[in-house]
């Protein structure tokens, strides 16, 4: 069994409503040092070992876990090897 971590974030230039709201809320709470907050998704998948494992995880991201119109993602495996889109 293998484990992958996936980080989904909005593409450059796409407005991030939860991030923007958190930014404002933190400033209101007195955290004047805040310059920016971006909120994305952190996904952990466990898959049975198999051929093309990593490519298939990327496919899952393309199809379902991320929306390529607005989001990009980065996949990190247990050894720390990274792929991104």
């Amino acid at each position: 069994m293998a484990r992958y971590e996936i980080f989904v974030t909005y593409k450059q230039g796409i407005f991030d409503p939860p991030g923007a709201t958190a930014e404002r809320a933190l400033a209101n709470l007195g955290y004047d040092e805040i310059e920016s907050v971006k909120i994305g998704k952190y996904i952990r998948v466990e898959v049975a070992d198999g051929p093309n494992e990593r490519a298939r995880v990327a496919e899952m991201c393309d199809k379902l876990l991320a929306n390529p119109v607005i989001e990009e993602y980065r996949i990190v495996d247990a050894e720390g090897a990274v792929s991104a889109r």
Partner: protein
Amino acid sequence: MRFGVVRFPGSNCEQDIVIACRYLGIDVDYVWHGDTDITGFDAIVLPGGFSYGDYIRTGAVARFSPVMGEVVRFAERGGPVLGVCNGFQILTEAHMLPGAMLRNRGLKFICETVPLRLERTVCQWVDLPEGTVVRIPINHNEGNFTADAETLARLDANGQVVLSYCEPDGTRAPGGSAPNGSANDIAGICNERGNVFGLMPHPERVVDPEASGTDGQPFLTTIVARLAGV
């Protein structure tokens, strides 16, 4: 003329569309998301609700339903497809319409009747004069439409923007009139051909004057008249 209303797991406005259609005398029936045959239907409606709980992204899972392959082919042949609210979200996830939905600015669900302005459009689902103002409820958490600048310009140039959020007098406020933060105040768009139409407001909620109003009627009846060649 027969409408097919797709039921996805988690849809919750499908019976509302059916009730509204029947009220307007439109023949209508449900289509199960697992079906792969939609012959016999002249228009397809993807209803509002929370397909698959809206958990990953709104519409993200529903677009892989077996029926969606047929819906895409139906649209490609020029068949009229309407997506209301969650249906609109599914249409963007399926790339049948451009853009995507973000969470509402302010991160709150909004249920409210709002003024909307008809734009100059190629959309086959409407024929109201440009500038007409209608009042229709919105009811969503993720209706903040976004697209890159180029897409937005193209939508505008092609007459693909169908409906905009506006002020009660039909003007658009300088800071934006969209309660959800939508780009260019966009509330509804269509594809280039005008047969696929997605909108966040719920026209089926304002069809029966006994209950709520009639401003939603044309969004269901126009296509019927058009297909009948009236």
